[in-house]
């Protein structure tokens, strides 16, 4: 059974149909890469999976459980299971690095501070930020903020990690820091859905890659299938452009 499954999922912003019947699955411990041109709906899929945008039709299943988006309790459950790292980090500007990581576990989940804090510090140490615990987000570089956002997501102990363009806003020299962290997670068996423009990275880390265009999954296969031997015209087009850059 797939850990995460989208079955003919459609979604719209108002009347603007963005997702037009997405079929996609991620097995437990698998890393799936999501690539495609800007505006194809990659971020929108992640918004659906964190309950920020309910689908207009179709089914989302987590470990076989169908998510009923009309019930607040099920959306809460979905959010407990899937954590997201946003492209723009979205760190809470009014909180320190440590507080950003601990606030949801303590204030929202009601766990003891004494229990959460060592975990948070360990996670921040893991992403190389032990010396920044008391810093505010606007005192950090993009790469540092990105890693705080990853630590914040991990401190929620999610089953599934959703990463949106985790490297897009970074300077090239910062990209490798973040990618190292993600490689580590993949090695530990975290289920991940990763959106990225970093084709080399997607290729290296993903078991399978989905190519999206205009709200549909056009082609799905191993990195080698998608990047070296695309079957569809649309995929060839995209991969050709990417590789030329």
């Amino acid at each position: 059974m797939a850990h995460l499954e989208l079955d003919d999922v459609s979604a719209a912003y108002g009347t603007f149909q963005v997702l037009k019947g997405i079929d996609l699955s991620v097995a437990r411990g698998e890393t799936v890469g999501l690539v495609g041109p800007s505006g194809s709906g990659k971020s929108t899929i992640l918004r659906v999976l964190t309950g920020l945008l309910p689908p207009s039709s179709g089914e989302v299943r987590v470990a076989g459980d169908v998510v009923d988006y009309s019930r607040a309790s099920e959306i809460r459950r979905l959010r407990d299971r899937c954590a997201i790292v946003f492209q723009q980090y979205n760190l809470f500007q009014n909180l320190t690095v440590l507080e950003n990581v601990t606030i949801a576990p303590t204030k929202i989940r009601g766990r003891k501070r004494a229990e959460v804090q060592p975990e948070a510090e360990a996670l921040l140490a893991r992403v190389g930020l032990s010396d920044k615990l008391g810093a505010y987000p606007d005192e950090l570089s993009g790469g540092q903020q990105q890693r705080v956002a990853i630590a914040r997501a991990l401190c929620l102990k999610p089953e599934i990690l959703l990463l949106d363009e985790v490297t897009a806003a970074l300077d090239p020299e910062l990209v490798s820091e973040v990618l190292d962290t993600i490689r580590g997670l993949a090695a530990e068996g975290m289920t991940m859905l990763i959106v990225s423009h970093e084709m080399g990275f997607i290729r290296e880390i993903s078991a399978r890659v989905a190519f999206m265009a205009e709200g549909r999954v056009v082609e799905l296969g191993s990195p080698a299938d998608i990047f070296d031997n695309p079957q569809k015209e649309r995929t060839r087009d995209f991969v050709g452009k990417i590789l030329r850059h």
Partner: protein
Amino acid sequence: MELFDLLTYYNVLFLAQDALTTLALSAFGCVLGGILGTALAVVRLTRGKLTLPLRGLALVFTEFFRRVPFLVTLFLCFFAFQFGGLEVSTLTVGCVTVVLIGTAFLAEIVRAGLQSVHPNQWHAAEAMNFSLLQTIRYVILPQAWTVILPPAFGFFILFIKDSALASQIGVVELTYVGKVLNNRGFSAGVTFGTILVIYFAISFPLARLGAKLEKKLGSSRTR
């Protein structure tokens, strides 16, 4: 001289006390109005069908009491109490009025402040299962208060003038005139109705003029 007659110890004391009352009245309106206004602002930020009627009420409330001139609201309150057959002091009427108006204005100031915080802060909190109130408490208000305080304070200053009007001429004069006319044999309804119309006719254009001037001054300052 008349001025010296006026400035006797007791008269000065009386005036000072009056000024303090005015200040207290507007402070009361701003504090309680700030709390209720924040509640209204939060109501207006909710989504879903369940709170739709509440949202509508909040919208009508804020728009109404922000547009109606202070004096008219004062008299509306006054008549509402009369109509309800409630004997209340003029101070009570003043208190209710400043809270109604303070709530309406501060609700709008707070709402604008909350919405000035970047949407991605709301999204991040929502994705981590923060409720609306938790989001506002832990994430939004700490970032919004610097945006909220200056206009809230500006409102407080302007509000003092309005409250002064209320305590000086408003309720006192109105009751006085009403009593006199009553004694002459006019019915209360006709008397107060007439006064309401007269005050509305005077204060509404003045308030409009004030708003226009403020806009002009405001825009020239930003240029």
